[in-house]
């Protein structure tokens, strides 16, 4: 047992092959959830095993990898995943969004526009957008087959009647390639427009639910909305990043642990670092550790 050796990128060849076959099908049918034989990983279910399996099936020795959680490279779970992937691949790692070949992310799309040739792998807890309105998998699969999205539209409509607006904040439903309603993963509304007609390939992995799906570059990804109640992103007007001054990135609202004061910071830490280093070379980043 102590003689045991793991293959490159941990997964055995057969597992990688199955995931690769499924990725090709996913890309051929944008927005459709392909079932796959998700393996148990040394990381817990619900903590990114789907995204991890995609990354490990796709990665090669020359790929540079970036891993973020809530936009932050130093988030504890991002660190955990990074050390695991480093251990099983020996690949180079980076915090720089534009330097990475593959970016694995939880709940955010980086602020800097990703290019052709880069791949964004998103970790997905709920692959099924219709879960907002229907608990049965059997039923939701039928709904997708028949393009029966009435329940979802009614749900959005009832929100407007009750609250004056659609209340879904993250996991905002989108229509992909005019055919499949899709769950973009718990990214905020702010990030949804980044999926539409992008240069980048987006791969989505749900390990626990055992589904893979994809959005190729230059694909229509449109948030569900009504003519008189259009899709809106989060409003940060009047607020800016305490560190770099940004007023057009997604901001975390947080509290200074010593003074108790509320302040805002870019959620995308690499974007923030880059901006602040071009503003003032001697700027020191806050030392508080992000959990």
């Amino acid at each position, binding site marked *: 047992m102590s003689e045991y050796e793991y293959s490159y990128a941990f997964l055995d060849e057969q597992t990688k092959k199955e995931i690769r076959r499924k990725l090709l099908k996913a890309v051929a049918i944008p927005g459709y959830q392909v079932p796959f034989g998700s393996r148990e990983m040394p990381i*817990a279910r619900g903590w990114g095993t789907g995204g991890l399996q995609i990354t490990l099936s796709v990665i090669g020795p020359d790929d540079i990898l970036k891993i973020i*959680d809530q936009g932050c490279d*130093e988030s504890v*779970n991002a660190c955990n995943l990074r050390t695991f992937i480093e251990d099983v691949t020996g690949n180079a790692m980076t915090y720089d969004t534009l330097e990475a070949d593959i970016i694995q992310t939880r709940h955010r799309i980086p602020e800097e526009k990703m290019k052709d040739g880069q791949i964004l792998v998103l970790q997905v807890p709920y692959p099924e957008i219709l879960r907002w309105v229907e608990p049965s998998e059997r039923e939701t699969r039928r709904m997708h087959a028949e393009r029966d999205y009435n329940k979802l539209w009614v749900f959005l409509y009832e929100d407007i009647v009750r609250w004056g607006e659609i209340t879904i904040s993250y996991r905002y439903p989108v229509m992909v390639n005019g055919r499949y309603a899709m769950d973009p993963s718990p990214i905020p509304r702010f990030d949804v427009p980044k999926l539409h007609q992008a240069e980048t390939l987006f791969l989505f992995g749900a390990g626990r639910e055992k589904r893979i799906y994809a959005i190729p570059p230059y694909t229509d990804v449109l948030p569900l909305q009504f003519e008189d109640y259009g899709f809106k992103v*989060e409003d940060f007007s009047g607020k800016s990043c305490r560190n770099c001054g940004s007023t057009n990135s*997604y901001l975390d609202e947080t509290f200074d642990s010593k003074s108790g004061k509320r302040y805002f910071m870019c959620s995308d830490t690499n974007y923030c670092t880059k901006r602040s280093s071009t503003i003032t070379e001697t700027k020191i980043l806050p030392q508080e550790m992000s959990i």
Partner: protein
Amino acid sequence: MYVAAKGGAKAISEAEKLLEYYRCNGESIPIEVKQIMDQMRLAVDKVMGEGSLYAPDLAALAIKQAEGDTIEAAFLLRAFRSTLPRLNYSIPADSGQMRILRRISAAFKDIPGGQFLGPTRDYTKRLLNFKLIEETDQHVRDFVAEYELMDLQQVLGTPLLFPKVADLLRDEGLIESVKMNNKKDTSSIQQNIDDITRQALRFPASRAMRMQSLARGETGSMMALAYSSMRGYGNVHPCIGELRVGYVELVIPHPLMAAEYITVGEILLTEVEIIARIKDENKNSRAKFALGYGICFGQNEIKAIAMATLDRAMTAVDPGAPAEDEEFVLYHIDGVEASGFTAHWKLPHYVDFQADLNRVRSINERRSGKNE
């Protein structure tokens, strides 16, 4: 450009050290894996079953590493299992040939071969035994020596074969015949039987998928769902036709010589067959019983009974209760998935929460701005 990780990575490594400290600072001598295997066999059996890997030594190691958290230990086994290559497939194991440790039937007062209580706590009085605090090496050795002497004399009178109770009813034509809905028959074994470690569950689930999911299911959740059925959310009164615990041989086809077989070992299994009434198919056909089947690694009777009960409950044509809903049962009894997702809420969700905050503030702004 790799920036040395600050903050997060250090926190993780400190947390790991602290964990280790909690495990080690009690001033007791380190537990041996063998001690867990020998003296906590039921925890080992539970972990093997939920970890879906028959390896008592590894299960014991996992229990030690997880400080007794059996769900965590099962997770360790599953993750390890994922790394193992699949070497072969056994021929169907014959539990009728089981080397019996324990074998009872609730349906009949006595059965061919007899009722054997075997090692069970069922009829013990649940009084804490304080003598165990003072137990010494010597006590244990003396007891074992004396027992082995005594037991040998009884063994000689024990029958070797225990026919299945269900077969008695089958011979009388009282058990319904079951239609299999596995994949199309092709020449190779692996194409023939669904494999939930290689394919995602889909519904309606094949019998193989159901059985595999249940056999590796978490004992507590299965017990809760089966209990609900017994109490009336669903309607299964699981009369135990037979419960057996014992060792079953595993046999594989010889890799080189056709029509030859090799026995690779034996595994401890708990097997339960429950008997339930079914509705008539039509008024003219014979009234029959249906079986519910439960099986798991090691000695884990609650789980096997629960499994057999759920097997029966999920055949309901019109599921009215959770235990009858195949999708509800199979999706929620996997301990590794359920515990992982339950725990994942501890991960940062501040971006998601910020998005929610934004919506709530937006609603309130509009409401306070409106003068309607």
